[in-house]
């Protein structure tokens, strides 16, 4: 019951992500999504496993505190509010996002779950989130929004990871989480460099190298 609600919220946040034009809003949605997923394992009633609780806490801290902090720093530096003229308009993005969701349902239909798993929504939701992340990456101009897209994509993967969360080695889980964080961190640094070099984070400037 509870997990399905969270999953539904996640998918909702997907749509709002592609629909919003404000970068700060997009970031908030992404963070919100991250926190939802961080709480997911507890919602799935896995509180009894100690390492899972730890993991949940870690996830929430990283996605709910560290990463937003990074984003806000970057946002302050580049002081931009809205994503003007994205490659793909918002309405079209919404349609595409819906399409992606539909596609993920089809795909998930072809990937039978282990008999007796109650979270049937999990796989389509994770795929949909993945596609949403891709959509953001492909359709937006601002480097920052693209990072958001990357974050969303990672969320999708994390969502699927929950299927295995019970017996996934903590080592691997922690590694994955760490990598996500460092990845975002490095991207933040590069964005900063970009801002300094081009005094703008519009990726249009980043098309010098071509054949």
């Amino acid at each position, binding site marked *: 019951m509870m997990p399905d609600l969270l999953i539904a919220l996640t998918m909702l946040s997907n749509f709002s992500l592609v629909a919003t034009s404000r970068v700060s809003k997009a970031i908030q949605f992404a963070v919100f999504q991250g926190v939802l997923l961080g709480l997911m394992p507890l919602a799935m009633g896995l509180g009894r496993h100690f390492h899972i609780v730890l993991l949940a806490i870690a996830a929430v801290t990283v996605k709910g505190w560290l990463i937003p902090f990074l984003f806000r720093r970057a946002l302050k530096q580049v002081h931009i509010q809205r994503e003007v003229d994205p*490659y793909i308009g918002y309405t079209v993005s919404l349609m595409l996002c819906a399409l992606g969701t539909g*596609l993920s349902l*089809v*795909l998930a239909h*072809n990937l039978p779950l282990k008999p007796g798993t109650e979270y049937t929504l999990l796989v389509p939701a994770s795929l949909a989130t993945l*596609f949403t992340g*891709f959509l953001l*990456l*492909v*359709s*937006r*101009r601002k480097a920052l929004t*693209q990072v958001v897209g990357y974050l969303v994509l990672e969320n999708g993967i994390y969502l699927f990871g929950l299927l295995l969360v019970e017996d996934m080695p903590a080592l691997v889980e922690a590694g994955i989480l760490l990598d996500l964080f460092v990845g975002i961190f490095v991207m933040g640094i590069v964005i900063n460099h970009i801002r300094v070099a081009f005094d703008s984070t519009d*990726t249009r400037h*980043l*098309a*010098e*190298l*071509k*054949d």
Partner: protein
Amino acid sequence: MSLFLLALLAAAASGVPGLFLRRKGGEVAAGLLGLAAVLGLWASLRVLSGVPGGAVTLRTASLGAPGFLVLDPLAAFFAIPVLLLSVAGALYSLGYWEGRRGNTPALRLVYGLLTASLLMLVMASHALTFLLAWEGMAITAFLLVMAEDREPETRRAGWIYLVATHTGTLLLFAAFALLAKIHGHSGFAALPTGLAATRGGTALFALFLLGFGFKAGVLPLHFWLPPAHAAAPSHVSALMSGVMLKMGILGLVRFLSWVPDPPIWWGGALVALGALSGVLGVAFALGQHDLKRLLAYHSIENIGIILLGLGLGALGKSLGNPVMQTLGFAGALLHVVNHSLFKGLLFLSAGSVLHATGTRNLEQLGGLGQRMPWTSGAFLAGSWAICGLPPLNGFVSEWLIYLGAFRGLGPNLGPGRQGWPVVILLSLALIGALALACFAKAFGAVFLGLPRTGTAARAHEAPRTMLLPMGLLALACLAIGVAPILFAPALGRVADAMGPATGAALPALAGLPMISLVALVLGLLALLLWRWLRPMPRRDDRPTWDCGYAAPDARMQYTASSFADGLVRGLRWALRPAVHLPKVSGWFPRPTRYESHVPDPILDRAAAPALRFTVRGAALLRIAQGGALPVYLLYVLLTLLALLVWMVA
């Protein structure tokens, strides 16, 4: 065998001392190559006289059949021209190249390596060693062609050559892969009976024909040859044209020697290609103004003659006609040696002309006969031989092929097969007549008449180091031409390699000694007449009789182009000469010029346009790498979706 390997090492090392010596590096190199020649010739002749040669097995990372290098009669036979020409070229380069250019030591080194890889190639009896030597040959030759890479022409020629040879190599990759599939190992061995008729056999034949055809310069795969030969230093051109092309023939010969039962059409294909290369080769030679390009096209022609011989032999083999087989293969093999001798001679003497005048353009030469008598003598001997005129060596090999073809007429070969011998006869006759015309043009334009330019008038005879190798080659030509019977047994032994005891009949040919006889008669008569002319009263201070015109000068004499004009017009349909014919108008027309040149049919009319087209196509596709990151990510997404959908479907 060990002797031969020693020779190989000596050749490979020949350039090394030159890297460290301040002076005399060239002499040392020539000396080492000479040593290699002595050792190698000794070893080869022993093998050709019936002593079994040895085999060497190398260890490489790849698994394979034993006997990676074998010194069989075929190898020994092909080694002879290699050794002769390489040492001749090295001697020649002392006067021709040494000290004139900066990169001499490197050139020497590479030249030695080329010789070594050629020697290794003839012995190779395993796909990997063969390809190793093959590529070694190709690349060293490429570097030699690039010797004068300051000229853009040379760079273009070198690049074209590189691409052509690599394409051929890739075809050989495929061929040897199929061979390995058949044998189960990459060693050289006879093919099982009946395989030749299957689709696999056909593929094998086609691949080998194409792969080796590129190297041999068979029309229409010849396009790299004229520019490369023109651009390379002359002693290198001699080695390339004289020997390197023959390695393509060697490959074909080896392949044919594995096939117990070639289908009829193989021989037919060989004959057809031979006729094409032969006739068109000499036809295109007629249209050239560049001496070395002209010689290059004649190489194509001679490769054609060799193919005619091979085709005849193959026909004989598949028809079970030992006479055709023997004469065809023997003629082809002998022509391989002959061509390397006289073509080497021709390229070397062309080099002396270039050395003396600095130009290869026939229209700017002339009258060199008085200024460089020895060189002109050498060139005349070469032309004499290449036109297949008795009593020089060119005649003997062509005579063998003629004989085989005529003999092929005798028995009824059955429907549709009678044609081949006639094709051979006709193309040989036509080639002979055209070659005669072409070399009359070349020799006349370069050495006879009046010098057409100042440089030609100031020409000087080449130094001894350059004349000596020419003399040696000329003597070799004469020897084979006058006394062919001496070489018949060795030739027979090599021809045996092509099939069961085919060559045995060769020495029994009654004609060979008779040719010597007629040659002697001819020489004797010429001598007598000469003696009769000598004592005559004479005065030679008059100008040429020009129908009453008192002061004829160089601009009045017949040019090379006008000499060939009649034939070029006759062959317009094939040559498609590009004629620049300005309109002369007005009462006092301004000075003008008439030009005509014959572009290469493949390179200039097919390959270059195709390449340009491809480049344009590629330029269109460049937008795929447009620089926009989202697009790149889109590629990732689309690939993923495509694969997932494909997986689900």
